[in-house]
């Protein structure tokens, strides 16, 4: 049985080309990038190149605006807590949305509970979209940060970041976007978006886990998160994860070159999957915006069944999918994202997320369309609340 991995929103395999460029930095060029000697210098040069590739992918003017981190969660924490700490004398109000990833949401809640900040959690419409007018209305005298994700990890809705960026700029408020799901998947340009801070994570686009980056626009005030050595121009102490950084650089390079081709392919697969499911399974509802949507994201509420039981059945068939975000899987709470979009608890429980990646094929989509309707029929047959 061929396995089908359709959980690329949770994480992706490392691309062979990426692994290839990482290899020498495990073995021959293993030096500490801060060391004087040639092992160190070669490592340093590799980091510089990778930094340029990251900067280029997101349209940063200066690669010194890129700070490598251990992933998306750290980048989000660094940005939000960093701005909060740097600007708390100026004000203590933060604006975010109610559908952020927990890396953002829990950071905001931490600031509320422990540091006396006030946080506005903006609502979203039934497509999971933030209304820019709401952002504008929420800005107060003491607002120091707006943090709104670029694309949602569960339902794939792409937010109107350009508009929000304009509003933030006009109001002179620092603007951060969690672009962990967007970077590598859709075009991202920090200048076009008017963002001051942007988080990205390698493992979402075929670079390894444990490496990410935070874009910090020149002049943006952010307190640092790790204290120690002078690495990353004194902004993030710790011996640099050279292989990870090199891998991230390569993944950025590939993403930039293949963006159009990849997204066209994914959109075609995605839409085939969406219409296939809508045609073959009753009582389903597509969650998230139909067009303003990540190329690889499919998310359905399937009435009268539990999301988790679908996952188990699919897993037995060799299909890897998820009910929402990986990080909250195993928890019994329904998705905060779906609830914010107005779904009832009951409907939110029956969600299925299929996220396509670089290595998925039409056969994979066919396989799902072959297996899923049967799985749903079987499960519904056992459901006490479903009566055909």
């Amino acid at each position, binding site marked *: 049985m061929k396995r089908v991995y359709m959980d690329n929103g949770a994480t992706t395999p490392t691309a062979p080309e990426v692994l290839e460029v990482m290899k020498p930095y495990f073995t021959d060029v293993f030096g500490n990038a801060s060391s004087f000697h040639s092992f160190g210098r070669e490592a340093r040069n590799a980091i510089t190149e990778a930094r340029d590739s990251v900067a280029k992918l997101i349209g940063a003017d200066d690669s010194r605006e890129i700070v490598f981190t251990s992933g998306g*969660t750290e980048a989000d924490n660094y940005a939000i807590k960093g701005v909060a700490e740097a600007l708390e004398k100026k004000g203590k109000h933060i604006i975010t949305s109610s559908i952020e990833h927990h890396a953002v949401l829990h950071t905001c809640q931490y600031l509320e509970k422990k540091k006396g900040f006030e946080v506005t959690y903006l609502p979203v419409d039934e497509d999971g979209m933030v209304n820019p007018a709401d952002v504008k209305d929420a800005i107060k005298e003491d607002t120091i940060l707006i943090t709104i994700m670029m694309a949602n990890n569960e339902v794939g809705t792409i937010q109107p970041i350009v508009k929000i960026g304009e509003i933030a700029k006009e109001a002179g408020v620092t603007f951060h976007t969690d672009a962990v799901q967007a970077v590598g998947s859709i075009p991202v340009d920090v200048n076009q978006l008017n963002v001051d801070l942007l988080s990205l994570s390698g493992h979402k686009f075929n670079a390894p886990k444990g490496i990410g980056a935070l874009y910090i626009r020149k002049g943006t005030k952010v307190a640092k998160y790790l204290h120690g050595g002078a690495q990353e121009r004194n902004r993030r102490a710790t011996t640099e994860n050279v292989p990870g950084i090199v891998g991230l650089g390569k993944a950025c390079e590939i993403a930039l070159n293949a963006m159009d081709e990849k997204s066209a392919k994914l959109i075609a697969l995605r839409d085939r999957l969406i219409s296939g499911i809508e045609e073959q399974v009753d009582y389903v509802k597509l969650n998230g915006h139909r067009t303003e949507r990540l190329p690889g994201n499919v998310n359905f509420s399937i009435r009268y069944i539990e999301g988790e039981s679908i996952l188990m059945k699919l897993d037995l068939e060799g299909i890897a999918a998820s009910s929402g975000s*990986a990080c909250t899987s195993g928890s019994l709470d329904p998705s905060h994202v779906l609830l914010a979009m107005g779904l009832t608890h009951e409907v939110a429980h029956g969600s299925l997320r299929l996220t396509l990646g670089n290595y998925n094929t039409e056969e994979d989509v066919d396989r799902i369309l072959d297996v899923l309707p049967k799985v749903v029929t079987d499960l519904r047959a056992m459901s006490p609340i479903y009566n055909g």
Partner: protein
Amino acid sequence: MEEIYLDNAATTKPYPEVVEKMKIALTTTYGNPSSLHRMGIEAEKMIKEARKNIASKLDVSDKEVYFTSGGTESNNLAIKGAVNSLKRHGKRLITSSIEHPSVLNLFKRLESEGYDVKYLQVDNEGIIDLEELKAYLNDETILVSIMGVNNETGSIQPLAEIGELLSDYDNLYFHVDGVQSFGKVDIPLSKIGIDLYSISAHKIHGSKGTGALYIKRGTRIDNLISGSKQESGIRPGTENVPGIAGFGQAVELLPSQDDKEKMYRLKELLVTRILDEIEESYLNGPKIHSGAAHIANISFAGVKGEVLIHTLERDNIYLSTGAACSSKQDTPSYVLEAMKVKPKLIEGAIRFSFAPSTTEEEVNYTVDKLKDAVKMLRKIMQR
């Protein structure tokens, strides 16, 4: 001669077995450990196995080991986390004056926030004075953070005695930066009463970007970062599965007793040959056998350490003057300063750091080349 890498305190070369394991995690078991499907479960299994290996080497329970992005983060998490969790019990923090910057700079920061930080002095072997520690300890003390082995000189702190002194106090955590001691010096964590112990993979032939923190059961520390529920909620963020799997593998290959004895023999060979054969050379820090087996720090009067290492690099010998992360800054080593090494000699200091694979031949070759280099540089300086 092939390259001779004697900078293993800065970082080590990952073992082939480690790289193999990492490749598997990068390409085959690439799932997200939080995912419920098989791919997720396989990734989770790799983490579990690594955690078990590390816990067993530390002789602690699996549940007491938490993965981080490296030694720096482990230190930051331990110190900030402990301070934030205990701050209502007092404001006194005690550390030593020769800690790694990831400890020292954090304490300076906490000092600026109003904490009362005491920096213990050290003697010329780099060892703290227990009496001084005793004098500073009071009911307001919430954290004592002392490194196991110093990264520049290999000085080993009397952790058991420190633990003994601390055992009289409540609401006080004992943190040890074990980045240079893990796998090199046996430290019975539970017996000593260490609450928090930081380690880093790239110092033991694992990969950069992965570390761990031992958090003794019942020790409550605040998070450094917020997010999802990974690492029991202590350290959110998708786990660095390849790095962690590699760490677990590296731990299985930690130096054996024989390896350690061999490293001591080589250190002895290096130090005695240098002191015998090169005039005005001085061993800094602890005596050969009182320090860790993998580090020796030696000063050469009349030469600049930096110039010396560049000269030796032409012979394919790789060394450093001290801590890598501060080696770009032109400031003299605060560690050697604290050990009262004369400023002139601090300038001429070099750190030699070994791996289990270091050979006698390499050591002899290094000393031979060093003799020539020192002679040559001294001549130039005299002109």
